[in-house]
């Protein structure tokens, strides 16, 4: 018996890339995401996790680290999101969880809490400016930027990717994905102001 996976955004089934008003839309549906809670002042915790992940847990707010394979997003003083786009791999989670003391830290598989809508194109800031109150130039200035904020009224995480064309990943709850996607597409109608 085989169970097939379903992505969240109806219009973006099977990794299709859609283009509206010069902006590309793609869903990164099945990336591994692990929520990591722990005390950032606890040296041993930080180093242990760092070793296991062979990456550094960012302590600087609104940033992420990237070791070429996985990203680690800063979500709060004691909270991180580990993202691995390689969907097959889930031993990472098991490995981390095994190592966890379950005393004051927590490792939780949240791969499916949120999906990732990836948008690419010159005018994506014009598009996002219709829905986001934050100063995009300031908050998404470079390729280590992460920002948690509201997309209209939907909680969202924005990650600026390291790429030649501007590319942003929008982490949205699965249940919100279609609402957010449809808004974005509707927003591509007038991108010049």
């Amino acid at each position, binding site marked *: 018996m085989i169970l097939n996976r379903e992505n969240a955004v109806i219009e973006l089934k099977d990794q299709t890339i859609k283009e509206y008003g010069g902006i590309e839309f793609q869903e990164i549906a099945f990336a591994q995401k692990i929520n990591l809670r722990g005390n950032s002042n606890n040296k041993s915790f930080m180093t242990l996790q760092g070793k296991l992940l062979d990456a550094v847990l960012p302590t600087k*707010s*609104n940033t992420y680290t990237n070791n070429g394979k996985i990203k680690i997003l800063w*979500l*709060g*003083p004691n*909270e991180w999101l580990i993202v691995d786009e390689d969907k097959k791999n889930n031993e990472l989670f098991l490995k981390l969880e095994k190592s966890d003391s379950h005393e004051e830290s927590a490792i939780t598989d949240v791969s499916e809490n949120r999906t990732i809508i990836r948008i690419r194109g010159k005018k994506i800031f014009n598009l996002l400016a219709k829905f986001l*109150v*934050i100063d995009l130039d300031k908050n998404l200035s470079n390729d280590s930027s992460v*920002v*948690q*904020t*509201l997309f209209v009224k939907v*909680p969202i995480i924005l990650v600026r990717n390291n790429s030649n064309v501007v590319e942003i990943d929008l982490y949205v709850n699965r249940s919100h994905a279609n609402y957010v996607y449809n808004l974005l597409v509707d927003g591509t109608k007038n991108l010049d102001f």
Partner: protein
Amino acid sequence: MFLINCPYCGEREQSEFSCGGEAHISRPKNPPDTSDDQWADYLFMRKNIKGVQFERWNHSSGCRQWFNVVRNTSTDEILGIYNMGEAIPEIDGENPKTPSGEPEIGSGNISTSFKKK
């Protein structure tokens, strides 16, 4: 519409936060020994200050951390921010002159300047 400087994420729109009301009201440690009045006091009674107020805010749409804010409720100026568990900071500056503090002329409130010690 005002901005709040989240101690973790930086300055953000107030709409990203939710207000937890007056700060430094801690839950009685010995509920069974409290009178109905004392319980009502903890549950409901508030200073509801006009002027400099100490209150709790949560960056609910950001890092989800709680912290304390010093705000002049008559002008919505934010005068200071400090962490949960920290003692009340000293605030220096005048409250609105009269209880109401509305200006004798012009719209809106008189601007009052404060500095956190």
